[in-house]
């Protein structure tokens, strides 16, 4: 596995709760593969703040197309350098 894409459009799921979960999981697993997170919807500002202040190396994307392109580009560049 070379990269993870998380795409959430929060309705009943609040983005702040999701962001907390992502940050906790990334810390616990000491994640080394790149993670691209795209979030929109309920409580999105709070969610983005949590991701930004986490100090974790989480890459954010503005929309689903951007997210797919970012994660694909990262994985491709890894393959080229390998």
């Amino acid at each position: 596995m070379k990269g993870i894409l998380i795409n959430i459009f929060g309705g009943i799921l609040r983005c702040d709760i999701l962001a907390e979960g992502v940050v906790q999981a990334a810390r616990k697993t000491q994640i080394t593969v790149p993670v691209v997170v795209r979030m929109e919807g309920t409580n999105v500002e709070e969610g983005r703040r949590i991701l930004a202040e986490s100090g974790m190396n989480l890459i954010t994307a503005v929309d689903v197309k951007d997210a797919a392109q970012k994660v694909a580009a990262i994985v491709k560049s890894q393959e080229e350098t390998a």
Partner: protein
Amino acid sequence: MSIFVNKNTRLLVQGITGREGQFHARQCAAYGTNVVAGVTPGKAGQKMDDIPVFNTVMNAVKATGANCSMIFVPPPFAADAIMEAADAGVEMIVAITEGIPVMDMMRVKNFLSGKPSRLIGPNCPGIITPGECKIGIMPGQISKPGGPIGVVSRSGTLTYEVVHQLTCQGIGQTTCIGIGGDPVNGTNFIDCLDAFQKDPATAGIVMVGEIGGTAEEEAAAFIQQHVTKPVIGFIAGLTAPPGRRMGHAGAIISGSSGTGQGKIAAMKACGITVCENLGTLGELCASVFGK
């Protein structure tokens, strides 16, 4: 104009004192929806913020004139809650609850037949007429009032994705409905397509289907015969392996029926513009619907 709900809708919330019911009742009220009552058996006389709570739907309707119910009741009791709302004469029943047993929903369908109540869901995000009222769990700020596009979808998240992309393109919505992902549900694609066709403010329709069942094929045939407005379609779950359920109870390919490719072919054959890349749906809408 809009379909099914508007600024005159008077909403009651069944399960208003629960965690999700309370949070989303507040979100709906903050959006501008007239939230007039809540129902939780045994808690009559209490208030949630300024909203009075009643023991039964009948009492709530009598006291407040509520004509629409949003249901956040847990799965084992949700079918009973839907039937209670219909029995009290509530015109529009929006069931958010996920996980209602199929046998329970079959009883509900039977109970509702011949009654004037319309059920949306269950296992759905609800319905929003942007700028007028929001009945459900969808984020309100992503929608854009004023039309002219109607959105109907089996998927919650994809409803938001479509609405957000439309709004980013400067295209507003008349009404957006999530009909839910369960195999037995209330309002279907055809009910919504028919209503959008008859709504003078709706100029075009986006329909989001997914694998499993035959709802999209039936909707495509209906569109060919009865819908003159342009329709853009999207089918979710194209990468799902056969036999594996994908998120929704109804989203499963069994044997050769319910495949995404079959649905796309049926939609194309009926004159629907099919979007094959979700990331470009907004741009496709802009080019098909104009601005």
